[in-house]
């Protein structure tokens, strides 16, 4: 037991070390000092309270998207459409925010609620076909991402463009703002929402009858069906919930940070979240840490571009290397087993 864990942890450390060494070589190749680059990255991510807040700000959407992915994964659903749900949720929240004056607080909740509904609604058709006809949800959600992004662009530019503005909606009313946490940073209650969601999801899956049923649907669907769990319905519900959380991620970004919806405002968060969740092996709590890791890398890289000659692409490369080698550290645990019985993502 202990031995397993020890080996797993040492595997992670070796993996990150390997990635950093490869990254250092690449940095040397572009004529920068690796030490300086890594120190700048650290400083950019955790250098002072503003930087830490910035890191947490970057972590927030990745975390919420990651939880969305975890919810789906738990029920055996691969929601690759979080990106699209985030865009629609973001737009929906902005729409409530600028078009419907409401009392403070209620306004924000209404906007978040519509974001949740929009995210869920956007995944509803893929979810329905998945549940009813077993239509592969990976394809349908990937494809619907493209439609979602184009659709929100259409809404923004053709229907709701701020007069005189760039491709963006009018600003939302302050009554709908998600309150900030510090006055020196844009960090807002979205982070808290993310943390509560992650821990809440973990608790629900572990400690409720519903969560038990869903877990079984994900890991052994025929067994769950036999045991009286309504597999199709729960699959539908889980995908819908995943989409709802994805929509919420968009709402949180809109209401907490941007205070309006901009065309193409948050590309890639859905995928970052998915990768964070997969690296965390579908555990919402572990996703907190993987999301934080990604957030720190991103925020650190922003300072890096300013303070060193290394460009953001180098950081992209290093980030990819880290993901690759962390994903590969399973080697340390499982070398030598047969591959035959292994679960592959079957489509």
């Amino acid at each position: 037991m202990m031995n397993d864990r020890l080996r797993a942890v040492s595997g992670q450390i070796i993996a990150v070390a390997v990635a950093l060494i490869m990254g250092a070589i690449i940095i040397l190749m572009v004529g920068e000092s690796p030490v300086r680059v890594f120190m700048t990255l650290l400083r950019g991510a955790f250098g002072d309270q503003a930087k830490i807040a910035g890191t947490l700000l970057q972590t927030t959407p990745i975390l919420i998207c990651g939880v969305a992915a975890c919810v789906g994964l738990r029920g055996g659903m691969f929601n690759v459409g979080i990106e699209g749900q985030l865009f629609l949720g973001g737009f929906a929240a902005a729409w409530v925010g600028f078009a419907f004056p409401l009392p403070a607080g209620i306004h924000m909740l209404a906007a978040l609620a519509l974001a949740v509904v929009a995210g869920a609604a956007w995944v509803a058709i893929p979810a329905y076909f998945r549940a009813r006809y077993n239509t592969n949800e990976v394809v349908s959600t990937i494809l619907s991402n493209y439609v979602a992004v184009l659709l929100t662009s259409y809404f923004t530019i053709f229907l709701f463009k701020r007069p005189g503005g760039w491709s963006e909606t009018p600003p939302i009313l302050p009554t709908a703002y998600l309150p900030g946490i510090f006055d020196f940073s844009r960090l807002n209650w979205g982070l808290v929402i993310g943390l509560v969601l992650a821990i809440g999801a973990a608790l629900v899956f572990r400690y409720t009858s519903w969560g038990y049923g869903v877990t079984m649907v994900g890991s052994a669907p025929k067994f769950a069906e036999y045991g009286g769990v309504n597999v199709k319905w729960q699959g539908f519900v889980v995908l819908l919930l995943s989409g709802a959380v994805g929509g919420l991620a968009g709402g949180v970004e809109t209401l907490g940070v941007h205070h309006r919806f901009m065309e193409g405002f948050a590309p890639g968060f859905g995928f970052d979240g998915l990768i964070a969740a997969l690296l965390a092996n579908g555990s919402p709590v572990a996703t907190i840490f993987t999301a934080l890791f990604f957030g720190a890398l991103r925020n650190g890289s922003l300072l890096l571009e300013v303070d060193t000659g290394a460009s953001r692409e180098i950081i992209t490369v290093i980030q990819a290397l880290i993901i690759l080698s962390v994903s590969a550290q399973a080697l340390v645990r499982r070398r030598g087993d047969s591959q035959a019985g292994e679960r592959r993502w079957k489509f």
Partner: protein
Amino acid sequence: QDKVSVAAISGYFAQGFGVSIVNGLNKAKDEFGIDLKLVDTGNRALDYEEQFENLAKAKQYDLIFVMGWELVDSLQKVSKAYPEQRFVFIDGVLDNPNMIYANFAEEQGSFVAGALAGMIEAKGSEFPKIGDGMAIGFVGGRDIPVIRNFLGGYEQGAKYAAPDVKVNSVFAGTFDDPAKGSELAQALYGQGADIVYNVAGPTGEGVMQASAAVDKYSIGVDIDMCGTAPGNVLASMLKRGDIAVYTLIKDEVEGRKVTAGTRTFDLASGGVEVKVCDDIAPTIPADVMAKLDEIKKAILDGKIEIAKAK
């Protein structure tokens, strides 16, 4: 005073207009030995403010050039938090009296390009590559206000020169997909357009190559694109970002401290211009060239009013 230090921040350094800005910055760096820092914003709105902060906090840049409308909000916020930091916003004017604006009249250049296209189209079979119909085309990158401004000028120019010309316009939805640009252009050519103007960054390169593939005419944008398809590129509508940044830096270096206010780069100042490609110029009838000069003059004199999109 020590060395002038300049930063530029944008998500578009890789695309036509951005490339010309980078060219101008590099030219200034070579000539004046200034410190130059380029920061690529990427495309996530969440990052912009932090990036501006990082630059402003460094307190080492005399001028920070900013390009891209999606940066405006973050820029305004940071510029208010760091009022002593001078920001130059390229390609537009905001309601912030603290900043410096380099404003371009792309609709003027596009008007001239449109007029050229209209006149050549009207000449019909005098040109081997012009068909019977009266149609020209436009391929935009994304359907956003700046691009619409180009399109508006182009349409008005074409109609001004040849009232019965039809302008077909399409948008690729992306600046990064030359293959799609090529398909779009081929579709336009296939439907009778003889000249296609592209305002689509790298996507537009596909348009130029398509004009060579079907042997029709195209018009380049932002930078001189005559070389991409020799014999098929009529002209390029140059939007001289390089001149803008170079001029401003030159002022700064030579002690004429750049202060808040708007600088306009239009036909008059040479900030936008239409360059007829050298290999094509000899084949263009004199009356067309004369008319073109007339139109330019009329724009400069304010006799032609060009409506701006937005």
